[in-house]
């Protein structure tokens, strides 16, 4: 029985923990240096520099809070943050609700069925967000595939694009595979005999699922939801292509700010705020759920 991971070469079982930590050949702490240098120079340093520049403005010299003052005083920025948050929350909920049954099916299906289904699930991830969103554009556009189909059936045209619906639909379907994969990993490790035991003690199928399976799958659900939420917060391609004028997300504003180029400090401030919100969500999450539980979500046995 091969899993998708094994298909791409990642083995299934491993030696004991003590063995794993033995100093083996070909290892030296200095081998971490290239990675640390790469992330330090190309990731950490630019981020820190950007955060620093968010405290600068073109006119003034030295550090100012002007950018942040501007952001917090303008009602339109508050509105954009609010909309971004709204969209991200709704998308996360939709992904959780839609993804859970799918992950459940995948985790309990026989291996012959799982492999092709996994490929189908993986396929969209191989194409960029841009291509997939473009596909939704073609389907939902006023002259698009869906409306042509409806016209053929003499049904009225529907406007499912350039509005919140289009954005939510496209974002949910784009982010769905991420939550399904996370949940799948968690669910596969849940010992099904526990469910049998519960039923053996008289619980109905539903009660067994509700009291045994569901709690055990919560770390995966929580982790997947966090992932989707964080990704959704930063989206700008999908809302830009599918949204209307009331579907502005913070990523779009940052992109505009950078593209226009005359006040990088302001765009930097927005980006820093987004980064801060994301960090807070992650920290809050790990405190609430416990990072060890996520990392060990495979070790439910």
């Amino acid at each position, binding site marked *: 029985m091969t899993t998708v991971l094994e298909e791409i070469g990642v083995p299934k079982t491993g030696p004991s923990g003590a063995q794993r930590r033995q100093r083996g050949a070909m290892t030296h702490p200095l081998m971490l240096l290239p990675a640390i240098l790469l992330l330090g120079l190309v990731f950490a340093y630019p981020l820190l520099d950007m955060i620093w520049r968010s405290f600068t403005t073109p006119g003034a010299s030295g550090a100012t809070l002007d950018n942040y003052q501007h952001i917090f005083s303008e009602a339109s920025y508050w509105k954009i943050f609010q909309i971004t948050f709204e969209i991200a929350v709704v998308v996360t909920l939709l992904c959780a609700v839609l993804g859970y049954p799918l992950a459940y099916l995948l985790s309990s299906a026989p291996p012959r069925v799982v492999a092709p289904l996994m490929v189908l699930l993986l*396929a969209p991830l191989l194409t960029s967000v841009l291509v997939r969103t473009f596909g939704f554009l073609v389907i939902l556009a006023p002259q698009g595939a869906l409306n042509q189909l409806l016209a053929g059936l003499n049904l009225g045209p529907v406007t499912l694009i350039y509005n919140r619906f289009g954005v939510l639909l496209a974002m949910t379907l784009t982010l769905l595979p991420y939550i399904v994969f996370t949940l799948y990993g968690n669910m596969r490790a849940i010992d099904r005999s526990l469910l049998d035991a519960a039923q053996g003690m008289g619980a109905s199928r539903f009660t067994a699922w509700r009291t045994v399976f569901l709690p055990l799958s919560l770390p995966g659900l929580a982790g997947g939801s966090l992932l989707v939420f964080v990704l959704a917060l930063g989206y700008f391609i999908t809302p830009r292509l599918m949204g209307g004028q009331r579907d502005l997300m913070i990523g779009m504003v940052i992109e505009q700010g950078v593209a226009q180029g005359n006040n990088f400090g302001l765009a930097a401030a927005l980006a820093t705020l987004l980064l801060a919100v994301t960090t807070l969500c992650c920290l809050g999450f790990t405190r609430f759920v416990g990072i060890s539980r996520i990392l060990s979500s495979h070790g439910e046995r």
Partner: protein
Amino acid sequence: MTSNRSVQILLYVYAAVVFFLLLAPLVIIFIVSFSSAEYLTFPPPSLSLRWYEVIFGRPQWQNAFITSIVSALTATVLALVAGTLASLALVRGKFRFRSTLYMGLLVPAIVPTVVTAAALFGIFAKLRFTGNVFGIGIGQSVLSLPFVVIVLTATLQSFDIRLEQAAISLGASPLRAFMTVTLPVIRPAMISAAVFAFLNAFDEVLIALFLSGPRTTTVPVMIWNSVTYDIQPTVAAVSTVVMAFAFVLLAVVLLVNRFLRHGSAGGGEKPIAPA
């Protein structure tokens, strides 16, 4: 597991609907790319290859493909080298802060890409390093690194290090032991990680968008420009080529791994013969 038939059927139907929704955009793009019409109409009035002629004929698209491939290769090489070395150190080493370093290497995956892209633009613009194909690749390597680290640490943790130690005890140098015993076993995972890192960088929009210049753009950036300013089936044709490219690479990976697993001598589990 005792299964309730109707619930199972319901789940399968549900899954079918969801998969349809997930894959419909890709299928539609494929169909529309063969349309002969000027605009994106569906169903296409007739089929033609004119849009493929456009993208393979026009220098802008040709240059964009080359730029994408070069930058994605740069990103992949950087991520693979740095990631493999780091994974070896993390899995096998015994020093403090290992788990912190591990988490640290994964941070780029959790930071919103638009933030990373904006930060990179800030530095690259100051250094006048935008519009450089290698610069784009360097920027994208940061996104590919977490993936490589995750795959390789998982693989190395599952690798039975006693095989390597046995080779050393039989007289091989550590390097030789690594090359002849460990490498063949972890190679499939490395190939997969490399291919996925490559595709990730190839398809990447945000960093490429911010770091591109007037004459150096990647395929996704050109798609973005086309989609936001004028939509033509050229975009569908390019998207189909990119998708086909990705599927071909994935198929190659699966086939190579199948071959490596059954073709090589048991993947390192063959008992080491006495000298």
